[in-house]
């Protein structure tokens, strides 16, 4: 046997030179746009259609949510730093920044949990009126997205202690980062549609 050519199914030839997993994430995010689009659409259709209170202006607290929005935006910034560190093989920094993203994400979730329980105290529940129904389902779905993002990042963090990690693995962090930035952008849309528009 003169020489053997290794024809991999999963690593070798790629028509676009992009890793499959990255392409997959882009396609998933395209699809996820439609998920959020449908939920935001439902929210807008039912805006001002509630027959009993509490109404949005009774409960929404712009300053508080601005703070949590800022925290979420900053987490995206840390995400960029984490990816940069991993790409330059700086594993300790990568771990630090990734942990930072997780912490900021968790702070955002903490704000959301506080907000939800505060609203329930004010009488706004899932089955109170259409505002409650659409508000909780939309922001709740976003919260689940953030939670999954935090879990993915924590998993990457833990795996980096178990298995050898190097710049070659940056694609996994990059893909998670795509997801994270997307969830962040969606929040900006939700924040505008639910919170800001109400007080214009």
């Amino acid at each position, binding site marked *: *046997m*003169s*020489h*053997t*050519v*290794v*024809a*991999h*199914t*999963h*690593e070798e*030839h*790629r*028509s*676009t030179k*992009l890793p*499959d*997993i990255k*392409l*997959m994430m882009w*396609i*998933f995010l*395209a*699809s*996820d746009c*439609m*998920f959020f*689009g*449908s*939920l935001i*659409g*439902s929210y807008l*259709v*039912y805006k001002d*259609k*509630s*027959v009993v209170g509490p109404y949005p202006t009774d409960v929404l607290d712009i300053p508080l949510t601005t703070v949590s929005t800022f925290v979420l935006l900053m987490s995206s910034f840390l995400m960029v730093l984490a990816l940069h560190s991993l790409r330059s093989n700086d594993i300790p920094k990568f771990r630090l920044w990734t942990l930072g993203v997780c912490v900021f994400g968790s702070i955002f979730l903490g704000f959301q949990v506080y907000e939800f329980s505060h609203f329930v105290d004010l009488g706004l529940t*899932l*089955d109170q*009126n*259409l505002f*409650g*129904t*659409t508000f*909780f*389902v939309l922001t709740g779905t976003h919260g689940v997205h953030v939670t999954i993002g935090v879990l993915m990042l924590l*998993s*990457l963090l833990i*795996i*980096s202690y178990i*298995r*050898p*990690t190097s710049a*070659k*693995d940056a694609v*996994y*962090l990059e893909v998670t980062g795509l997801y994270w930035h997307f969830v962040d952008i969606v929040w900006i849309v939700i924040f505008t549609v639910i919170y800001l528009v109400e007080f214009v």
Partner: protein
Amino acid sequence: MAIGRQTAAAGDAGVITRPTWTTGWASWLTTVDHKRLGLLYIVSSFIFLAFGSIEAFLIRLQLTRPEQQLISPDVFNQLFTMHGVTMVFLAIMPLGIGFANYFVPLMIGARDLAFPRLNAFGYWVYALGGVFLYTSFFLGGAPDVGWFAYAPLTSLSNNPGNGVDFYMIGLLVGGIGTLVTAMNLIVTVVNMRAPGMTFMRLPLFVWMMLITSFLIIFAFPALTIALFQVIMDRTFGTLFYVPEAGALPILWQHLFWIFGHPEVYIIILPAFGVISEVIPTFSRKPLFGYPIMVLSGIFIGFMGFAVWSHHMFTTGLGPVANTAFALTSFVIGIPTGIKVFNWIATMWGGHVRFAVPMLYATAFLITFTLGGITGIMVAVPPFDAQVQDTYFVVAHFHFVMGGGALLAFLAGFYYWFPKMSGRMMPEGLGKIAFWLIVPGFYLIFWPQHLAGLVGMPRRVQTYEAGIGLDAYNLMSSMGTYVMGAGMIIVIASAFWALRKGTIAGDDPWDGRTLEWATTSPPPHYDFDVVPEINDRDPVWLIKHPELIERRDPISESVDPDHTPPEHVEQIAIHIPGQSWYPLIAALGIFFGSYALLYQNLFLGLFTVAIIFLACYAWALEGVGGHHENVDPAAGGRA
């Protein structure tokens, strides 16, 4: 980190030892081979097709004569709901996906889909979702609200039984399977084309599947959200579709049809793809006007998102909205017309051989044209005001879905059966079945147009005698026996052919596209060596090298990074490892569905844990697999 990069150390990472069976039932449960999964899809589709047909038969039995009471209204509602759901979600759409699973990688010169285990997961979720839906018959009654389940018929107060929950959760679960498979197909087509297989050289079936997959990823979320809202309403007391709280039931219709109309194209575009493969092969000519065929497919897919409200002309959207959606619907007629003309032009001047696949393709052309024309008619809102929700519409969409998609997939089934099984379907029986199925189909659905015009609403369990409906319904019911006999012959002859059919050889039809370059059935790794691709019909060009001068100029441009394959004596082909985790995750979702339905917190937490663990184990075990040494000169394994 290295999540997915373990290939050598199979079995280390997982909780369960990595399965390596190559035969027996366990090999099918753990398979990640796109061909096996394709076969599973096709077989499951045919099983569900049989269920759906039995339901259709019972519906026609009840409607044979006026004022019959063979089947109670409750059961009747369940039958037509399950018939619709089965045919759309469990039979016809997965049939297209099954063919895509099997043939897209073969046609683009790939050795598998991009994510083989995700592909397995997609199949298991679909199959178990179907099983879940069907268990409803034994657990308090199947859904009875029609396949589009208009709110507020689905609210807890209007429909306290479990049936609606089965519908909502079942479709939600099935939708997950369809979504991941579509994403997988997109990545595969975009990223795994063989060197030289440029986009303008892709077989039309692959193009149509690519467009279909994009339709799926954009359309299914709307359905998923709508289903999710109703599940929330019924389980957690939200008010999405509770009119007393001010909710607008029309929202469901918008969300459903934003999904539902693209769904029509999700079903019919793969059928277009099959026809676009069958007609050139049996005409011994290239597809006429390939670029415009691709473009019209893209255009149809795109417009598919702009016409949903033509299902809602009678809901009082107002004249302006009705005009807008009527016009966009008419516009879809243009690319569809172009396609039909191009198919006929492909036959024109050819040497057309009327083997069974070509017979079905011809029947498709006529039937689909008729269905398309009634489609233009019902897109006229004033006329639609009369026939909406009547048997005219029933006849219209059966001409498109049954006479269109089903006949095209039967063409595909006969066309690709030799490739999948290595044996030919019997030609004589095939023709007998064809001459039962097609006239039977017309006997069932042609009179339904007239029944609708004479005033028969759809979804009625019975109808008055003597108001002009009796004859049409009798004919329609008689047709089910004729068409049913034909379908039974198809299934029976397939079983016969699997054992006794004549050996097909690699290329029984004098094929044109890449799947005919490998053996029948193909080896696990699809191709020993992927042939050099420098034309749209690579296999045809290999057989007739003198035709290189007559290539389509558009297909001539050479892939910039295309290097001719070096001569090799041995190739080590990576075979991805089998895995239990897709099935375990799918089972978790399956049992989780019951937990949600019966609001069983314990089972719910348990299944969430199972899904969670399966996902981690799946991620950590990596692609796995081994390398198989192939000696191309010897034509197979070394």
